[in-house]
């Protein structure tokens, strides 16, 4: 019984970390219709900034997290203006090739600047070590990551479904020309959405760094996982991504406990089953 609770807690925590890291990609792919395979590279960039800020500059984790998100969002503006904007509406293959090229460049730069070894982010004492949650001890930073995931989910849902910006974004995505005719500055809406997605990537990279450590190959190592979350959840659906992360977290954690020798067999079996039954993902809109 205790083991079942234990696996449940691990699954929940893993699923939420997955959500924090993948949700930005769901925003770009679902709302902006852009296949941004460089998403993981921005998560890595955020991680490197936070690692440098906490380890070399001695900043507090909270400030480092804010700095990582802010710097990545600032970098996203010129990148969107001069590079990504040229590929809006382009074929998916061209988007994939451009962003995978960008990923390899960022891997190379990270390797050159920061070296091939992995970097850690110094956590404040309150997030270090185990916390007693009644039936077992549990890593404190995982509870923090899960909380960040929940707040992000709620915040994004409110932003997209309940604010005027959300209305404009959805209008710009559904029919850019009509939206523009109605006076919506679609370019600005896209730029803000892109920066927001990059900021989410950076936050995910920092918050999830204990589980997915920051190293130059980060983007390639975890790319498939991010894509699987978006695909299973339904691109652009926050509830879908959340559900996907929790289901996949449960399958992966249970599989790793009961049948570790099967590797990721059950994980991918679940992915195939869900995607073949629901081609648009759990909560994706039909095209």
């Amino acid at each position, binding site marked *: 019984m205790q083991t079942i609770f234990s696996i449940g807690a*691990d699954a929940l925590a893993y699923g939420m970390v997955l959500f924090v890291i993948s949700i930005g990609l769901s925003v770009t792919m679902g709302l902006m219709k852009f296949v941004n395979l460089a998403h993981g590279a921005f998560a890595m960039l955020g991680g490197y900034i936070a690692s440098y800020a906490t380890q070399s500059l001695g900043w507090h984790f909270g400030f480092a997290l804010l700095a990582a998100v802010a710097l990545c969002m600032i970098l996203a503006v010129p990148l969107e203006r001069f590079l990504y904007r040229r590929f809006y509406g382009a074929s998916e293959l061209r988007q994939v090739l451009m962003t995978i090229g960008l990923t390899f460049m960022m891997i190379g730069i990270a390797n050159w600047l920061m*070296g091939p070894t*992995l970097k850690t982010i110094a956590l404040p004492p309150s997030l270090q070590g185990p916390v007693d949650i009644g039936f077992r*001890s549990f890593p404190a930073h995982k509870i923090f990551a899960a909380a960040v995931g929940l707040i992000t989910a709620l915040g994004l849902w409110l932003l997209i479904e309940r604010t005027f910006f959300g209305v404009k974004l959805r209008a710009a995505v559904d029919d850019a020309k009509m939206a523009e005719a109605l006076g919506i500055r679609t370019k600005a809406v896209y730029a803000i959405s892109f920066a927001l997605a990059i900021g989410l990537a950076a936050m995910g990279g920092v918050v999830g760094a204990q589980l997915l450590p920051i190293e130059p190959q980060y983007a390639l190592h975890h790319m498939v996982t991010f894509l699987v979350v978006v695909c299973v959840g339904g691109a652009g659906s926050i509830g879908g991504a959340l559900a996907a992360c929790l289901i996949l977290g449960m399958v992966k954690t249970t599989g*790793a*406990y009961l049948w*570790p020798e099967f590797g*990721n067999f059950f994980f991918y079996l679940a992915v195939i089953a869900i995607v073949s039954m629901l081609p648009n993902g759990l909560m994706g809109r039909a095209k």
Partner: protein
Amino acid sequence: MKFLCQTTAILALCAGGAFADTIKVGVIGPFSGGAALQGRNFQAGIEAYFALNGRTVGDHEIEIIYRDLPAADPGQSAALTQELIVGEGVQYLAGYYYTPDAMAAAPILEEANVPMVVFNAATSAIVNASPLVVRTSFTTFQTSTPMATVARERGIERVITVVSDYGPGVDSETAFVRAFGAAGGTVVESVRMPMSTVDFSPIMQRIRDSGAEAVFAFLPAGPQTFGFMTAFVENGLKADGVQLLAPGDLTQESDLPVLGPNAAGMLTTFHYAVSHNSPENIAFTEAATAWLGNPAELSFPAVGAFDGMHVIAHMIAATNGQQDAAAAVDSVKGLEWISPRGPVSINPDNRHITQNIYLREVAEVEGQYINHEIQVFENQGDPGWVAP
């Protein structure tokens, strides 16, 4: 036809190369990509050898030609090896970080009349792939087996083994299970984890539920080891007194600054620790870190490369610079010398290095974590080697 061309080219080079005063050594290793630090350690070991012994053997000057192989890639390894032999005319091949790369290059050796000195790749079977292979690193069997004795000496009865599901992991598991069973211990469970595992919490729960007193683990160094050690501490296993045992790959010196306090007190068995206290090692580490620039980057592949250069220099002296691979390899069979890791010799039967294996404990000394040697297993051969 291809064979004929290569042979002709090689013969032409031999005829010209025999009396030349420059001996070329081709070194293949990961100089870029995820394992670039290990490639830099190859270079550090070679440069340290030159710094301490000079670049010449008699009248012959040694020239190193590096080729980058960022990840395990047998096809590319074979291609680079051929290119070094045919294009550059190397008389010796060296390096090879990953087993598949060494295996892919081995069939070319006899045809090309070139010996290979393996600086790192650690599967027992490599020396059987060609009679011209000499290895100066270690095998996973060699470093994992003494840990069974350590566990028994400390009164540990029940152990769970947890390894990454790939060649070295399986080797390590087999070596430990065999030796621990023979020493009267019980392996209660053996778990093989997929290589892509990032969340080790379920594994930690599994270890807890198994009721074992100790875990024997093997994972590739880097993100995996970091995640494993962190999970081990955060899930309370370390606090509960479960002992973590592993071969030294897990606590290599270049990873210790990151693993830090999570690894403190951990026991590992390995052939080399940067902290090894001997005049040979002090001279070696000074020369190697002078080249690396950063003392924290020095790790075990450097000593494999350093001793590899010692073997190559001996081969050059024994053959007086002539290209005769069989004679060169014969000359080092049974060769004994004092390495930075302690006394070593080349086993005449399998051309693998016989060496001391040390039990080390991760300890904090003057604010830095080191592998502190606390026990010696002398003159260990390779228990995983099976005569062909």
